């Protein structure tokens, strides 16, 4: 009998060690909005039902700067109130020192994700966050208008500018005075870093800071790319584009006042929603390349990830939760419910997803071509580097200095920021 008791105790002990029998309370912070918040809650409900643990969602403002500042403060205070942080793709590398290394715990699942995304969340060989959905922009175009004037979907930026001008002028002649050719995100903020990285990279101008840490931005092809973008402002793009973020550009686009738009996938469903003036009149394509040497289409990699706080009282349970939310099943759920782009390659060939959200398989090439911002290289100095970059670009776009001069200055300040090593 005693032997059986001992055995039982051993078994129970093993079970306890493997999966916590006691229900645990976890807190996850997320800046998700409306729909996203609802889907997250549904996923967590399923998790709670399965494990008996309880998860509270702490909402934060959807503005990126507000969120990031709040995360910084929580982590700086060593707050154990939050176990899991939902982070933008560029944040985890900056917060790496205060996040749990997930490499060991996730080595069974990382293989299924896009390598470029996993790469972007790896700092000094440590995986600091696990991706749950990705984001990559595309070129939205008005199929009806291109057809009307016999224009093709542009395959280079130059073609885009030409077609945009053509259609815009014709439409204006026809009495549509508010028509513009191309809208994008030109405000001085992180979004401009994304847009400008695409122009530069697609024109063969490198990716600001190369994967090995070299600062490559000061080159003629990059300068040419920015000069090209400058020529759009006031001609095919409204002067106000310099203050546009995602929503402002979508506002112009969705009221039917733009031929082309650069935006994230979220605009697809909204554009096709009930009562939208452009419903069924538009399509998406990959963003076009430039013309220089090494030019190729480029889309900046976005997307969200989950990181576990070093100060969590239950890091192991938190890691399990993260793996649950990032699992193929839950990513599929997310894709079906809200058209979120999965980070797991196989899901792009999933028949169920393809029939429910036909737009997702079409995005596979965009994601495969996606370029990460240099956050893994610049680490904790990324935000500052990015702010230097978007300031240089914004100055160029507003006609404050030439692209070549601004990029030379940028190279100097980035070199100084880098110091001896990133």
């Amino acid at each position: 009998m005693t032997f059986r008791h001992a055995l039982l105790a051993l078994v129970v002990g093993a079970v306890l060690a493997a999966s916590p029998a006691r229900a645990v309370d976890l807190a996850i912070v997320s800046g998700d909005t409306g729909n996203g918040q609802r889907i997250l809650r549904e996923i967590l409900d399923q998790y709670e039902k399965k494990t008996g643990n309880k998860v509270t969602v702490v909402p934060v403002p959807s503005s990126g700067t507000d969120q990031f500042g709040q995360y910084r403060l929580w982590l700086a205070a060593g707050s154990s109130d939050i176990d899991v942080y939902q982070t933008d793709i560029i944040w985890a590398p900056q917060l790496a020192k205060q996040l749990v290394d997930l490499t060991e715990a996730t080595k069974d699942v990382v293989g299924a994700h896009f390598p470029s995304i996993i790469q972007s969340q790896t700092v000094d060989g440590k995986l600091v966050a696990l991706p749950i959905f990705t984001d990559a922009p595309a070129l939205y175009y008005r199929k009806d208008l291109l057809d009307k004037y016999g224009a093709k979907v542009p395959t280079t930026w130059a073609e885009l500018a030409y077609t945009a001008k053509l259609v815009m002028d014709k439409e204006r002649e026809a009495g549509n005075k508010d028509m513009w050719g191309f809208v994008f995100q030109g405000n001085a903020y992180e979004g401009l870093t994304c847009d400008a990285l695409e122009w530069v990279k697609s024109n063969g101008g490198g990716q600001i800071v190369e994967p090995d840490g070299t600062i490559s931005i000061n080159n003629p092809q990059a300068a040419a790319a920015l000069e090209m973008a400058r020529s759009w402002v006031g001609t095919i793009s409204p002067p106000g584009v310099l203050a546009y973020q995602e929503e402002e550009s979508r506002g112009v686009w969705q009221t039917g006042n733009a031929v082309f738009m650069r935006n994230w996938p979220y605009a697809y469903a909204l554009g096709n929603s009930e009562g939208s003036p452009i419903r069924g009149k538009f399509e998406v394509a990959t963003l076009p390349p430039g013309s220089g040497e090494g030019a190729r289409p480029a889309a900046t990699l976005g997307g969200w990830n989950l990181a576990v706080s070093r100060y969590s009282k239950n890091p192991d349970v938190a890691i399990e939760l993260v793996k649950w939310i990032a699992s193929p099943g839950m990513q599929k759920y997310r894709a079906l419910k809200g058209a979120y782009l999965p980070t797991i390659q196989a899901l792009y060939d999933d028949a169920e997803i393809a029939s429910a959200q036909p737009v997702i398989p079409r995005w596979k090439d965009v994601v495969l071509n996606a370029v990460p911002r240099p956050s893994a290289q610049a680490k904790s100095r990324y935000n500052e580097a990015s702010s230097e970059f978007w300031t240089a670009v914004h100055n160029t776009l507003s006609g404050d200095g030439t692209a070549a001069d601004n990029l030379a200055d940028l190279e100097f300040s980035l070199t100084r920021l880098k110091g001896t090593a990133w």
Partner: protein
Amino acid sequence: MRQRARSAWLFLAPMLIVLAAVAGWPLLRTIYFGFTDASLTDLEAGRWVGFANYFSVLHMPSGRIIYDGLLADPVWWRAVWNTVRFAVISVTCETILGMIVALVLNAEFPGRGVVRAAILIPWAIPTIVSAKMWQWMLNDQFGIINDALLRLGLISTKIAWTASADTAMFAVLIVDIWKTTPFMALLILAALQMLPQEIYEVTRLDGVSPWKVFWKVTLPLIRPALMVAVIFRGLDALRIFDLIYVLTPNNVRTKSMSVFARENLFEFDKFAYGSAASTLLFVILVLLTMLVLRFGRVKLDRSY
């Protein structure tokens, strides 16, 4: 008398304790961090670096000499200039407009109560709300301001108010002046209502022009009150944060000292640098106040 002095401290104690805790301690921490190289990642690991965050000279291996620190940072000076320009323009406009509104409200006319209540509305609206409201109205494509100006024929193309470098500061100023003029008017009105009516009776009998009465009688009499109002508003304007943070957060032409400090504290990995900027901002404010108090002949502690 001794006993009264002791009871004075007794009465002051609760207020002083609360202030020391809520303001004194955090400020001391900020000042301290300004002299370290602390990072928000690990506050305690910060080492003492003296005045390096304020000014330092680096000798590069290439032989180049680089001046570093806040005092050599063009972005900081730009922020100082932006803030000072904003403060001077906004306070001047608010004082003049506030004076006009106060003079109007000081006159007797039917419906005065309603008007007085109406002008207080902008001031009662939370800043975050008014910033959003104006952001909406100033929107270049669907904003009502552009629409109205277009209809009136004052502009020919839609203006991107918060976007373009020339109008961003203008937009911030419009919103701030709209929001704060009522408060200024209220303070001035309070002072106006204190004035003895007899003076006006006399000047009216003598047939002095209202313009002259204003310059020779009214203004000198309300000057002390006006000074206090201007000082309080000026200090407030130099700290401007939320309005700019919501309207034009990253525009280098509207970036104020507070916005600069926040950016370094929480956005960039430069907590110590941001602390130094906050300290410098505080020092600037204190020095300015002392100057104004001395030269504006405003006494903190009147004898009675």
